[in-house]
């Protein structure tokens, strides 16, 4: 609803802040005890919206995901529940340890990728497009089963090279404005970019309801917003670069509680 005008504003804000990132030396990444969820940078009103399930619009997607969980799908005619039973039991803690290493393809996969593997292999159904309402709904429903649990991603040693690639991407300057993710999120968190407070970019609440989007969106959508913000060419949805970035950020956020479905401005 407000996507277009806001994006313009955002770009103007980033352009206004130009020179800021270029001039300052690299500050160290926030220490574990200094880590703060984006939740803490929000207004009191947005915090209340997130904490009350009766007013959190993300719960609409969770409810839809719950319905999809027990809907017959694909040639197999199987539901997710046929194999996985009660999600409150079988999916508890799952979202908190994604992305995981998927040995069959020798690469990490995110939760959305894992859901689509089950659709293809176990339900004989077509994979759901990234950012489709159904895929977001299933991911929000599964994510909510881990709400409040500490993030445990990155345990598997086979993930290390991919995490390192994600970190390299996070620290690489890019786009016409020539900013790295770290320039904003490590060096200038807590300060303002136009009217927005720059958070530390912990992916603790995804998929989440962003007020600017007027909708639930994935972490990849958030990445794309930040890349467009520095006028870089975003990778297409589903790109391995996003999974590497998510892996790096989830490992960096280990121990922080999952908030899905969170609210963000």
């Amino acid at each position, binding site marked *: *609803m407000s996507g*277009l005008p806001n994006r313009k504003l955002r770009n103007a804000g980033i352009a206004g802040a130009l020179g800021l990132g270029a001039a300052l030396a690299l500050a160290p990444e926030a220490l574990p005890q200094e880590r703060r969820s984006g939740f803490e940078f929000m207004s009191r009103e947005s915090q209340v919206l997130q904490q009350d399930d*009766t007013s959190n*619009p993300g719960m*609409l997607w969770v409810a*839809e995901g719950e*319905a999809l969980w027990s809907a017959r799908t694909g040639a197999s005619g199987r539901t997710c529940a046929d194999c996985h039973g009660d999600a409150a039991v079988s999916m508890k803690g799952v979202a908190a340890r994604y992305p995981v290493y998927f040995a069959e393809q020798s690469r990490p996969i995110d939760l959305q990728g894992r859901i689509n593997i089950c659709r293809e292999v176990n339900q004989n159904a077509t994979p759901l497009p990234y950012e489709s309402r159904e895929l977001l709904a299933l991911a929000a429903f599964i994510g909510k089963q881990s709400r409040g649990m500490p993030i445990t991603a990155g345990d598997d040693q086979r993930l290390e090279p991919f995490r390192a690639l994600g970190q390299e991407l996070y620290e690489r300057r890019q786009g016409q404005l020539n900013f790295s993710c770290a320039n904003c999120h490590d060096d200038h968190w807590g300060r303002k970019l136009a009217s927005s407070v720059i958070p530390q970019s912990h992916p603790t609440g995804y998929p989440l309801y962003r007020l600017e989007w007027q909708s639930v969106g994935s972490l990849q959508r958030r990445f794309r917003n930040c890349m467009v913000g520095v006028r870089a060419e975003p990778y297409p949805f589903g790109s391995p670069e996003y999974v590497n970035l998510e892996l790096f950020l989830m490992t960096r956020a280990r121990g922080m509680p999952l908030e899905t479905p969170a609210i963000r401005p």
Partner: protein
Amino acid sequence: MARALINVPSKAKRGEIIEIKALVSHPMETGYRTGPDGGLVPRDIISRFLCTYNGEEIFSADLFPAIAANPFLSFTTVATESGRIAFRWIDDKGQAHLETAEIVVE
């Protein structure tokens, strides 16, 4: 698709003031936005929302394009008798929706 999340206390004491909350799934498309083809995206908002308690209207609202997607409406009423609280809303596409909740008043 989840159309709405309705929150009504299932039990109340007679004479008690109860809070009713409705979170309605709707794009609330303003009609002022341009789509990818440069043309205006047609307006589609909930224009009217109505709540009845055993058939009697207790709350209604006219909604306008400046209201965000997935509107949240909350209001109070006095619990008078057991029965049904019904929520109806209609949008620009002419689609009418109905959700109901039961309340026991002792």
